[in-house]
């Protein structure tokens, strides 16, 4: 799959199951948007096979578009239409739209239904954007870095909206560069760096965290001690046993495992990806 002169992504092999929230994670410039735009039918690929809802997005027609919803990475709304009007406009494009009031509730804009888009905050505009992608009652929803630039509370509100979509049985294809977002929302995560897939799995087992070295921290005689171990139970037993024999305490004892964030940073560290 390439776009323009340089090959943006290659050898990408993805499978998304109906009804799951799939997170496509990677740093800026890793090829996330290129991939998602190929899946959405915006970009033509130079090679490979793609099937979305059983059709090739490059050739798919109106019926296919009726079954997908798209939230672009950046896209402003018509500033002079209200929340209800923007949804009404898009509802007209689909044969069996969801009721407008229901969508307003789903994206948490009840108090803002008659507010024009220009008066909404960034987070509210983004939620309206999701509402416009949902109005056609799609089976599959694409969200391209939906929370970039959000403050923490707006991000949390947005996550609630996405969690609600999973309850509706929608399939969600989410791209993000926030590890925490993938961890909170996704059933499965695939990590891309420099146009290639570097890891895939559930948020829990990604990067084989269960079997990686754990780190033990404590203070002894005023000194910081840091131990890395792959046999955590045994090492910890010996340490605490010795301390008890000596009648000492292990001050500030702490055991840490690599977080998903650590795994992610490690996996994408030498990708050299930049816009």
């Amino acid at each position, binding site marked *: 799959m390439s776009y323009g002169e340089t090959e943006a992504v290659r050898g990408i092999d993805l499978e998304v199951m109906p009804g799951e929230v799939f997170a496509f994670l990677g740093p800026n410039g890793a090829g996330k948007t290129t991939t998602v735009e190929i899946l*959405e*039918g*915006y970009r033509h690929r130079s090679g490979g096979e793609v099937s979305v809802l059983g059709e090739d997005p490059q050739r798919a027609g*109106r*019926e296919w*578009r*009726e079954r*997908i919803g*798209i939230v*672009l990475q*950046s*896209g*402003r*709304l*018509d*500033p*002079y*239409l209200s929340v209800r*009007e923007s949804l*009404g*406009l*898009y509802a*007209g*494009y*689909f044969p069996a739209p969801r009721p407008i009031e229901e969508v307003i509730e789903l994206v948490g804009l009840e108090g803002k239904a008659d507010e*024009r888009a220009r008066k909404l905050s960034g987070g509210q505009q983004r939620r309206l*954007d999701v509402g*416009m992608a949902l109005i*056609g009652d799609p089976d599959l929803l694409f969200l391209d870095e939906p929370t970039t630039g959000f403050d923490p509370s707006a991000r949390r509100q947005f996550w609630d909206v996405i969690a609600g979509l999973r309850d509706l049985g929608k399939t969600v294809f989410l791209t993000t560069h926030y590890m925490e977002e993938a961890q909170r929302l996704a059933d499965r995560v695939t990590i891309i760096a420099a146009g290639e897939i570097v890891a895939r799995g559930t948020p829990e087992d990604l990067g084989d965290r269960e079997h990686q070295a754990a780190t033990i921290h404590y203070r002894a005689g005023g000194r910081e001690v840091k131990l890395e171990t792959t046999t955590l139970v045994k090492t910890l037993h010996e340490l605490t046993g010795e301390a008890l024999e000596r009648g000492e305490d292990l001050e500030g004892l702490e055991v840490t495992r690599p977080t998903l964030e650590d795994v992610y940073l490690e996996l994408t560290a030498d990708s050299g990806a930049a816009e």
Partner: protein
Amino acid sequence: MSGLALVAHQFRYDQKAFWRNPASVFFTVMFPVVLLLIFGTVFGGQTVNVRGGIKTTTYYVPAIITLSIISATMQSLAMSLVIAREDGRLKRGRGTPMPPWVFIAGRVGNSIVVALIMMALLAVIGRIAYGVAIPWERLPEIVLVLVVGAAAFACLGIALTAAIPSQDAAAPIVNALLLPLYFLSGVFIPDDQLPSGVIHFADIFPIRHFFEAFFDAYVPAGAGGAAISWGNLAIVAIWGVVGLLLAVRFFRWTPRSG
């Protein structure tokens, strides 16, 4: 929804957005009104040596209506489509089942309706403020000329978006094209005061031809008006077709910047 019902649906929302946008109301609606009032007040009571001599205001009413039609179509579409394109709104629309032609038809319909409203408004102002008769008996010809011209300039406006790289560049590019041509085509300066070389130059472009066609339809025969000017109207229509072909070939739905 069927295709035409969908166009009507799109048109309704385009109308709402248009009248709520202060920039479009100012430049498309207020600006021609202010121009007519200024020209009418400053040059009122004089005569223009066009077609045996007519009152200045009789000249300026169809002249400013011509400007307002071009403004409501070419100028307004070029600007608003570039803004929508760079905002990502066109791209979002392309991701829905709405056929692209429906969107364009809604926008063009919107601009033609605004052009009709502007003609009515300026005609009424011309009648009340300067006693310029409204040629009711020629309404079919006038509307025909307006619709052909509005459609042609709408196509040219859509084609022009391909040459505008960003939102900031939209107003300068559109004005740099249109303002000199208004002067050279006799819209601001009556053509009896323009050297013939200037008129010949202006004849290369569609504004002069549209102005002549509209003037001929609007100004009654007794005061120097001719019949419907098919030759001029045909040239405007040809420009429109060229614009349409360029638009089909070069119009883009995705942002140029970013």
